[in-house]
């Protein structure tokens, strides 16, 4: 049910854009107004999110660690698994973001008759997740050729590497294949594992289908139902130079479908689980140094409690205490 709702939601969105351009000639709406609105929503939404996270105090040091903490100089500490300073935190965060190290440690837990608990390797999620994110990033970087007057060398190099199999014309990009396979695997995994399906929501399926829809429309218009790519670049360049103008040539409805699904993704991004892009940097279990034994951290929301110390108490009642024969610290 949740799968179907998400699937049809994406399908309807795609059809709306396709029909809107094909039948109603709404190129300006789908090519200029909606992309701008979506991009502004994306920027403002992400900034709002970060500010909101930034205004929540994190009073305790709660990094997850799996190595020896820094202590005495003769005990070897694990700088990466248990960072004690900013540098270690940055290194650990970078490796986490680039290679998903914590997901690599993912285990499968199984309860079998006996009762016996067994743990096993579970690397497929890590592999598919990494393949998905990296190909997405490379595709995004390759797309910069639509947004730059003189495409700089690094981008053309990525493109050359990505197409180095030199299959067909236009050349096949490896990342297109990897992205489609990885997203398909991630989807099948979600519906195939009963426990996972049970906890999956529309908010999980919808972005999956949306990304799949963007990739499928992209692949369709590159390899199967061609669009006017030169026209697409003219539109893209006019958008980023803030002088929006539709090109004279017809780009093709598939392009506007691609762009519309992408706009939906961008607008949806800050309000969905996809903000983990920004959130990963703000997760307290990953972005804190484990230095609670070296530094005192005061809870920022501590209420200023009025304390009455023993010394003050004794000052108040010294004579009475002496009279009652109680021991006092100061004579």
């Amino acid at each position, binding site marked *: 049910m949740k799968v179907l709702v998400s699937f049809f939601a994406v399908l309807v969105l795609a059809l709306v854009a396709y029909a809107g351009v094909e039948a109603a000639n709404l190129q300006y709406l789908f090519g200029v107004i909606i992309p701008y609105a979506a991009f502004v929503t994306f920027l403002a939404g992400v900034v709002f999110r970060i500010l909101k996270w*930034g205004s929540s105090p994190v009073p305790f040091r709660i990094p997850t660690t799996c190595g020896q903490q820094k202590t005495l100089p003769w005990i070897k500490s694990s700088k990466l698994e248990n960072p004690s300073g900013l540098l270690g935190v940055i290194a650990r965060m970078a490796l986490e973001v680039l290679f998903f190290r914590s997901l690599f440690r993912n285990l499968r837990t199984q309860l079998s008759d006996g009762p016996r608990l067994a743990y096993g390797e579970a690397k497929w999620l890590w592999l598919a997740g990494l393949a998905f994110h990296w190909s997405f990033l490379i595709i995004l970087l390759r797309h910069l050729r639509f947004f730059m007057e003189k495409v700089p060398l690094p981008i053309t190099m990525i493109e050359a590497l990505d197409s180095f199999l*030199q299959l067909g014309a236009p050349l096949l990009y490896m990342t297109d294949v990897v992205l489609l396979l990885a997203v398909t695997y991630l989807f099948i995994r979600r519906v195939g594992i009963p426990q996972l399906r049970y906890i999956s929501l529309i908010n999980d399926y919808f972005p999956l289908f949306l990304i799949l829809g963007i990739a499928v429309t992209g692949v369709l218009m590159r390899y199967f139902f061609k669009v006017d790519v030169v026209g697409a670049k003219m539109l893209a360049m006019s958008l*980023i130079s803030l002088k929006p103008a539709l090109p004279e040539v017809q780009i093709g409805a598939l392009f506007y479908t691609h762009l519309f699904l992408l706009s939906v993704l961008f607008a949806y991004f800050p309000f969905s689980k996809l903000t983990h892009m920004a959130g990963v940097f703000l997760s307290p279990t990953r972005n804190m140094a484990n230095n609670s034994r070296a530094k005192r951290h005061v809870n920022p929301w501590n209420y200023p409690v009025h304390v009455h110390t023993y010394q003050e108490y004794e000052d108040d009642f010294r004579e009475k205490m002496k009279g009652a024969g109680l021991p006092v610290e100061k004579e």
Partner: protein
Amino acid sequence: MRLYNGGLIITGIVVFLALATFPFYYNIGKANAKPDIKLEPAIKMSEERYGKKQCVEPKEWIRREHMVLLNHWRDAVVRDENRGYLSTDTGTRFNMSLQNECMQCHSSKKNFCDQCHNYMAVKPFCWDCHIAPTEKEEARS
């Protein structure tokens, strides 16, 4: 609203905005060049051959699908030894050849193919082996 670790949060936001809007400021001040393709020699040739200002196939189609057509031509010649192609539009027979057909009409690579390809940053590797027509002096000026 009070920010905790405000310095780091603001730095993060600035980095995010700088990355996300990169294309917007990267292109400021750069001339917005568009492909400037020269069609005169091709039009003359096509009008001589079949009396119509027409590529192998209609313009809309050839703009989008020329690489597929070339790929098809290559396979037909190299694999099936078939060098004849009938235009679906004009019915004219074409010799399936990059150098001896496309480049006969589009006699300057620089003023034609390269115009679009440089704009789009595509570099077909065909010219590693196939010989591009020599650019005439007048074409260069």
